[in-house]
C-alpha cells in the first residue's frame, strides 16, 4: 500500500502567543515548533496501514520554508520511508495551499492520503477535504477509526449525538482525529535511520488567494473574573448572580 501523509509544522500548543510586527502573524522568536498533533495520528496510521498490508511505501509531504525539513525528519524517525519538501512560502489561504499539495500528490498515485483533522495554528480544518475534491477522490474527515480491506475503507467519525459510520473505495483522503491510535515516539534507532532516508526538495510557488488576513489580535481579556466566595456558603450568592445579573437560569 502506498500512503502519503501531509505534515504541518506548528507552534507547540503550550506556547505563549504574541502578535508579530506585521500585525497578521505571530512573533516566532522563542516559540518551539512541533509536528501538528493531529498529523501524528496520520503518521501512525500510515505506518500501521503499510505494516498491515505487508508491503508498500509511506511518504511524508510538507509545504513550507526550509525549517519544515526538521519536522519531516521527525516523521522519518517515527518510521516513514521518505519525505518530500514542497519548498516555498505557504499561503494563509487553505485552497491556495491545497492546490499545490494536490498537484504534487496526484502523480504519486497513492492508495491513501492522510492528514490531520486540523492544524492547531490556523485552525483551517479544510486542507484534506480540499485536496480530495481537487483530486476527485473520496474523502472522510475527522476519522477516529479507519479500517482497510479489499480496496475499501470503513471509517467512524464523531458527530453531534453519536458516531457516524461510512465507507468508500480507495484511493481516498482521510483526515485524522484523536482516538484513531496512539502515535509512537521516534526511537533512537529511528532518529539515526532518519538521517539516511531520502528527503526530496521540490521548489513550488503557491498561487493567488481569494482570502487575505487583515489582522491578528489577542482576544479581549474576559472581564476580570469574580470570586463569589468560599465553600457552600457562597452558593446562594452565585445563584443570585446567575439569575439576576447573568440571566442564564
Amino acid at each position, binding site marked *: 500500500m502506498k500512503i502519503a501523509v501531509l505534515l504541518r509544522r506548528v507552534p507547540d500548543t503550550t506556547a505563549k502567543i504574541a502578535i508579530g510586527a506585521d500585525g497578521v502573524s505571530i512573533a516566532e522568536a522563542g516559540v518551539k515548533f512541533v509536528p501538528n498533533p493531529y498529523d501524528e495520528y496520520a503518521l501512525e496510521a500510515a505506518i500501521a496501514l503499510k505494516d498491515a498490508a505487508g508491503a508498500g511505501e509511506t511518504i511524508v509531504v510538507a509545504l513550507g520554508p526550509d525549517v519544515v525539513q526538521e519536522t519531516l525528519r521527525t516523521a522519518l524517525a517515527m518510521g516513514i520511508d521518505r519525505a518530500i519538501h514542497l519548498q516555498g512560502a505557504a499561503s494563509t489561504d487553505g485552497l491556495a495551499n491545497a492546490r499545490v499539495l494536490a498537484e504534487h500528490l496526484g502523480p504519486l498515485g497513492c492508495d491513501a492520503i492522510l492528514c490531520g483533522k486540523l492544524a492547531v495554528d490556523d485552525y483551517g480544518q479544510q486542507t484534506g477535504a480540499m485536496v480530495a475534491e481537487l483530486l476527485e477522490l473520496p474523502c472522510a474527515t475527522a476519522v477516529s477509526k479507519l479500517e482497510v480491506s479489499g480496496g475499501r475503507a470503513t471509517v467512524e467519525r464523531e458527530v453531534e449525538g453519536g458516531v457516524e459510520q461510512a465507507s468508500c473505495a480507495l484511493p481516498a483522503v482521510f483526515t485524522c482525529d484523536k482516538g484513531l491510535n496512539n502515535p509512537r515516539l521516534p526511537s533512537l534507532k529511528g532518529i539515526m535511520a532518519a538521517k539516511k532516508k531520502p528527503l526530496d526538495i521540490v521548489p513550488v510557488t503557491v498561487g493567488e488567494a481569494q482570502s487575505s488576513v487583515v489582522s491578528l489580535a489577542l*482576544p479581549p481579556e*474576559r472581564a476580570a473574573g*469574580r470570586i*463569589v466566595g*468560599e465553600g457552600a456558603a457562597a452558593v446562594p450568592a*452565585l445563584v443570585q448572580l446567575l439569575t439576576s445579573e447573568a440571566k442564564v437560569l
Partner: protein
Amino acid sequence: MAAILAVLEQRQGALRKGAAELIAAALQVAGVSGDTVDVLICGNGAVSGADALGAAGADRVLTASHADFTNYCPDGIVATVASIAANYRAIFIAATSTGKDLAPRVAARLGSSCAMDVTSVAAAGAKVRVVRPVYAGKALQTVDLAGTPVVAVRPGSYPAAAIAKAGMVESVAVPSFSRRLEVSGIRAPEKATLDVAEARVVVSGGRGLGDPKHFALLEELAAAFGGEAAIGASRAVVDAGWIEHGAQVGQTGKTVAPELYFAIGISGAVQHLAGMRTAKVIVAINRDKDAPIFKVADFGIVGDLFEVVPALTAAIAQAKAH
C-alpha cells in the same frame, strides 16, 4: 442585489437545530446590503421544520430531494450547492461536525476560500469580513473573503433573529453526482445524552472529581437544569477512561459555546480553555484559589467540590422551581 445561501443540516427528515442562528448570521451581511437570504435543505423527501424558516428570516426555502440524502451525503450536497452557487455572493454553513466536513468540499468545488469556525461576520464592500479564533483561541484572526466564499459559522455565535420573510418553498433539482463516500448511519451512544456541543448548559468535571463514580454529582447538577444540560470533561479524565471521549472539551475535544459553562475540579489548562472560552458565562469551582480557571471564569467559588456541588444542585433546583 445579490443573495446569500445558507445550507442547512437535516438528519432523518428533521431539520437540525441551529438553522435560525445560521440565517441570523447570514443576515449580518445581507441586512446591510439589502441582499436576500435563501436556505437550502438537502433531504430525502419532506424535512420537518422547513416551514418555520420564513419566520427566522429566509426569503426562499430551497429543497433538494434525493434517495441518497437520508444520511449525510457530502458528494450530493456539494453537487447541488455548486449547481446554484452562481446566484450567490456567499455560502453559509454551520460549523458543526457535519458542516465542517461539507464547507471545504464546497469551497474547493467552487474555487473559493473557506473560513471555518467564524464567530463574527460582516459585509466589507463586495467582500465578507470574518473573525475567527486561531491558535487554540489564543488569537483572533480577521480575514477578508473575496469571490463566493464559504463561511462556516460556529454554533452559538448569533442568536436567532425574528425578521419575518416570505420563506417561499421551492424545489431544486439535484444534479447527477458520483457518491464517493457512503454514510451508512449514526450509531447512538450507549446512553442517550445531550451532546456538549449542542447543550445550553454544560457541566464539566476534571481530575478534581477524584473518581469516575463522582460524575454522579455532576449528573445531578445537570439534571437540575431539566434536560438542558450536558456533561463535559477535561482530557485528563477522558484519558483516564472515566468518561467517553465525546464528552471532552478542549483543543483535542469539542469546542463549545453554551450560555452557561461549569468547570468543576478543572484547573484550566490552555488546551481546555481553547474549547470553552467563548461560553457566555463561565462558573468555576475549585479548591485552589490560584487555579488558572479563575482567570477566565465570570464567577468562581473556592472550595471543595464535594461540598459546593450538592449545595449548588439544591439551589438551582429551587431557583428553577420558581
